[in-house]
């Protein structure tokens, strides 16, 4: 059903993408024209710490969306939640998310992948004691030879195996790993494993690929080629959502940026403007980052009191929000 919108060639043109996103208000939880992923009221608590608390988020189809935020902002936890690797604490009390028109709220990680949303991991998960080729072949979906009863009879799966192998070779060639195809994945370098993981994810022809820090630990030269690959995927019509720390990378390739801090989505917008958003600056640098502590003025009674008052007001506001939430939950239960 989505095939018509996916692969719209016009989105390969930067101007078209800018025009597409121009109508979207740059604010947290903004509605998109054609969202492929919609997330509602997803919350994850670890004891007393709320790691993720996202009210509403939409991801536009066919573009590259970056998810950024300081350490501990809950980006990876958010990834885990929507890909089924973790369950939200708010499950059953309004947590819902749908991908490509299908609800995924109660789906296991493997079914999420089957639905066309494939992820990679921050710590690369290559299958070390298997060859690069075997790693790739595992990416392909719906292999009849994986059925226990059919697996014993080679003629039943030989043909499909050949097709899958051809596809794997093409992808490996694209990611410059073809000459490594018979090596064990464990013998690859860290950067090559990142490439392998990405190539493996692509074996399943996903509609959306979610990359968790694809550039972490990759040398600058390889970063360039990885960026090229990601943009090529977008130009082919795939939706990309990725977590990244490197602002240059984010600014360079992403069409839309979602900023998370302390589990919440604090800002959204095009890459060039979102960086100057006050909430983003506060999230990364702290609200008083431009106050010079060496300045005598700070040391005067008045300034200190003012800061303390600000902090108190801040805390009170937070508590009020928390209480309101507790009350709500109390009503519900």
């Amino acid at each position: 059903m989505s095939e018509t919108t996916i692969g719209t060639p016009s989105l390969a043109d930067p101007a078209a993408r800018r025009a597409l996103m121009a109508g979207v208000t740059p604010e947290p939880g903004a509605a998109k024209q054609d969202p492929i992923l919609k997330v509602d009221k997803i919350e994850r608590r670890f004891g007393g710490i709320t790691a993720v608390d996202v009210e509403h988020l939409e991801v536009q189809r066919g573009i590259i969306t970056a998810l950024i935020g300081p350490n501990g902002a809950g980006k990876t936890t958010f990834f885990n939640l929507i890909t089924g690797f973790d369950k939200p604490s708010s499950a059953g009390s309004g947590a819902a998310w749908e991908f490509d028109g299908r609800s995924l709220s109660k789906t296991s990680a493997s079914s999420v992948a089957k639905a066309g949303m494939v992820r990679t991991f921050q710590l690369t998960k290559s299958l070390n004691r298997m060859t690069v080729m075997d790693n790739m072949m595992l990416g392909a979906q719906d292999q009849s030879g994986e059925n226990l009863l059919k697996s014993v009879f080679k003629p039943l799966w030989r043909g499909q195996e050949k097709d899958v192998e051809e596809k794997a070779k093409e992808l490996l060639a694209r990611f410059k790993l073809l000459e490594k195809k018979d090596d064990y994945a464990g013998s690859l370098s860290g950067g090559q494993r990142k490439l392998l993981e990405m190539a493996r994810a692509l074996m399943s022809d996903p509609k959306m690929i979610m990359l968790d820090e694809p550039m972490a630990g990759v040398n600058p030269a390889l970063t360039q080629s990885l960026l090229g690959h990601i943009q090529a995927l977008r130009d082919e019509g795939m939706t990309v959502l990725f977590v990244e720390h490197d602002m240059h990378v984010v600014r360079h390739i992403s069409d839309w940026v979602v900023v998370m801090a302390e589990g919440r989505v604090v800002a959204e917008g095009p890459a060039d403007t979102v960086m100057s958003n006050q909430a983003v600056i506060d999230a990364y640098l702290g609200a008083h980052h431009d106050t010079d502590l060496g300045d005598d003025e700070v040391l005067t009674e008045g300034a200190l009191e003012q800061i303390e008052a600000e902090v108190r007001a801040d805390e009170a506001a937070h508590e009020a929000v928390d209480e309101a939430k507790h009350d709500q939950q109390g009503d519900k239960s």
Partner: protein
Amino acid sequence: MDTILDILSAVIREAISPGTAAVAIAVIGLNLHFGYTGLLNFGQSGFMLLGAYGFAISLVHDVPLPLAVLVGLGLAFVFALVLGIPTLQLRGDYLAIVTISAAEIIRFVGRLSNLKDLTGGAQGIQGRTYQPAFVDLSFFGDGAWTLAPFNYTDVADGAGWVRALGGLVFAACIVATVLVGRRLKRAADPTRTAPRTGLDGTLGKVAAVVLVLIGLYALFFAMPVTYGRSGVNGWWVRAVAWTLVALSTLVVYLLVRSPWGRLLRGVREDEDAMRSLGRNVFAVKMQSLVIGGLFGALGGMVYVLASTVQPDALGRQITFFSYTALLLGGAATILGPVLGTVLFFSARILIRESARAYVPDSIMSAQQTEQFSFIVVGVALVLLVIFRPQGILGNKRELRFNV
């Protein structure tokens, strides 16, 4: 000289005994669990015991043989489900804990005196109450038969040098097979740069098979063994047992070369990665647990064909022997389980009989030689894990990566 020959003869008898074949089948199943899927099943003896009980009790109650086999397999199937459903969702260690306790539970339930009518309690079920149904199927006829029929006694009136020659041919074949095998392994290594020669391809494989066959014949030429053709502990049982070993090996080979086998190895390497690729990890692990367990039950049935159903004979130690044999032969290899089991049991008998023959009774009694053999085997296993952790047939390249 005669003592040495007696010892070697005992070793060969152990190597081809139905018990060895039975454990080999169980190890083949364990290889599917541990070697290919990475499941830590410490309860393979439980699967064996259930298979043996299901088989023997059915036969005692006049159930036809094929049905009795199905009952044994069915029990193991249910056992695998019961073990797998709660534990396969958890981390691997839990399966280890649950399987070892479940196997012990099976053993203790079998020993219950309340169940004496069914299981015979701690005494077990006498072989003669269920074995006839199987022995009667024999079409081998009566009388005794010697392997090999043409042996050293037919040449030069069984002179010592003929026998020694047979032994030498055997040793030479082993050495030659190892050399060809190494060559084949090097040829399979993609990083190798040396040019390929004739022995690297199919020709090398054929040569290895021929060498093994000649070596085996030379062995039995020098050390012929004689058993009754049918009977309770004759060639019939051995033939069936080793045929089943061959069939099990073939089935595992067909399974693991397929995309399904790739799933198993993927699950062994990283379950989360497999989930992210849309694979149902639980189902794969369950399939592996069930199939390996069925091999265990089959092994249990073969085990009791030539002995009795005795719960303590199929206790924890069989599980640990199985692991030792598996590591010895090489986990995640096709022929490793069979080779490992044969070598493990032969080596133990070799040590035991040598100690019995050459160590005076004042130092070590006959009973102590039995324990001594286990000690030596244990030390050998420790050395093996340190110096050749991949086993005899394993691939060292795989061990370079810590998972």
